[in-house]
């Protein structure tokens, strides 16, 4: 069986650099980590490989080259190959262009199933998985929090999806795209101490536009259908710590506060 995981590297949302001139995230200067939902997809792929060692598991991502050490760590965990799509031309791509680029690469890889996360913690649009599924004409489910390992075959999968107030179990024909949530139990392990310096360079492939051959006008900012033009950060608030008593006057203060802030 062949599984392709498509993942995103995200800046640590508590600690990132944002360029207010160009309205892009300066990923080269921000510490990048694997998006938590996507890490679950990787975790499930590893679980399956552990069960069935012939399973071929691959990872595809589009990111700046600074993520190479993290990709190498993924390979050290036992992934068969990693493909990094990286080119200055692709910088500033919106979800539409990103999905197009990722789809064009995945299309050339044989697969029985594509795994991804549901949400990304930075943009939090959840667009890319659905868009890739559409591009590749695949069925797709989001919010998956459990996949039945015994019934995960080349032709179908049984998955449990988390809804607002219930869980629904689906059977879905493969190939399809399955998006997991971080509530799923498939933890991505860390590289063991003894493997920290394993050489995995042979299994890492970097693709630039030289290989992909897109017209520069179709990709990056110029190919995007949407463009971030302004941003503002919320100011760090200073608390007033106004102290009131639990009497009529105090309740009125709270009531007015709730009302003026739109909670009532």
């Amino acid at each position, binding site marked *: 069986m062949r599984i392709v995981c498509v993942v995103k590297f995200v800046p640590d*949302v508590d600690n990132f650099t*944002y360029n207010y001139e160009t309205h892009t995230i300066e990923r080269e200067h921000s510490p990048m980590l694997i998006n938590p939902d996507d890490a679950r997809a990787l975790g499930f792929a590893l679980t399956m490989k552990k069960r069935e060692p012939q399973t071929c598991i691959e990872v595809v991502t589009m990111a700046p080259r600074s993520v190479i050490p993290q990709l190498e760590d993924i390979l050290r965990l036992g992934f068969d190959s990693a493909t990094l799509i990286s080119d200055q031309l692709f910088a500033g791509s919106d*979800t*539409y262009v990103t*999905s197009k680029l990722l789809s064009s690469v995945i299309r050339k890889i044989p697969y029985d199933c594509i795994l991804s996360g549901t949400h990304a*913690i*930075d*943009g*939090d*649009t*959840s*667009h*890319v998985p*659905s*868009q890739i599924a*559409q*591009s590749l004409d695949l*069925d797709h*489910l*989001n*919010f998956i929090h459990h996949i039945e390992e015994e019934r995960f075959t080349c032709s179908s999968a*049984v998955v449990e999806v988390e809804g*607002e*107030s*219930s*869980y*629904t*179990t*689906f*059977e*879905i024909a493969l190939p399809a795209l399955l998006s997991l949530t971080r509530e799923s139990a498939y933890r991505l392990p860390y590289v063991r101490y003894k493997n920290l310096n394993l050489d995995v360079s042979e299994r890492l492939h970097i693709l630039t536009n030289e290989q992909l051959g897109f017209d520069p006008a179709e990709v990056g900012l110029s190919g*995007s*259908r*949407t*463009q*971030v*033009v*302004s*941003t*503002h*950060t*919320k100011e760090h608030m200073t*608390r*007033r*710590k*106004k*102290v*009131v*008593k*639990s009497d009529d006057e105090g309740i*009125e*203060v*709270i*009531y007015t*506060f*709730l*009302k003026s*802030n739109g*909670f*009532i």
Partner: protein
Amino acid sequence: MKKVLVYVEDGYAQESLSLLEAVRQLYPDQHVETYALLINSDASAIDGVCDVLLTLEDGTLQPFDQKGLCDVFTSVHTRYSFDAILFLATPMGRCIAPSVSMRLETGLVADVTAIANDDGQISLIRPAYSGKIMAGIRIKGEGPVMMSIRIGVFTYQGTDTVQSTNIGLEGLDYRHGNIKVMGTKEKKIPYDIRESDVLISGGAGCSDMESLQDLADLLGGHVSASRAVVDKGIVPRAIQVGQSGKTVSPSLYIALGIHGALQHVEGLKDIPHIISVNTNKDAPICSISDIVVEGDALPFVAKLIRRIKEGQQR
């Protein structure tokens, strides 16, 4: 004239009215013809509000079937050529919208909170980075303009009624995805405190957790708890805030009888509005609160509930 499609998802007819307010802000000075797409969905809430009700009844077309729904949207758009398509950011809306936008090769903006149309140049505002950044996004390309809107962000203010035209969609070309439902089960705690916008949180100084529910309901929020209450087995760990529980990000946090150990307040500092009720006004939690109510939690809750209800009656 502009033609706009709003998707009225089954079970969200009332909430879908807010999409019409978004439409008004999107094209403030133009005549807009509004179309509602209803797939196996009850139209009564939207009847008399939208100009055209496009209805499709097909029990075999399931709400989670992205492939099938994407085909439907594409066919409908081919038939009517909309200038904009709007979705509610429900779990399903957020899945279908991107696949439709990809098929139509157009841009999509998720979770829009504000809209500006400056001489035809449309900018949409949305939060990113867990709400730390608000981004203004310009729509480029041929369109249609596509966006999703969170429930409760826009409020429908229209009062005029129109004579809605009902059109049953016939002869649409669409497939069915290869997905089958095998079963469902209810969640034990039917909400996730990480998603809640308002949290009413009880601690050791709050002797009756059940009485918080009414206040939570009035403020459209949920009940959460500090470790002290969870450890006593009064409430499940699933609603515990803090280091060994969950990191939450509501817009309003009301801390009732919570001391505020570092493990609890880790992550609370960025919450826009915090009210704490405590008999000790020097308890650590009070240092990160906008308003501190000095007193017992439960009498406060009862008084506030009474005040809110009074306000509703007026």
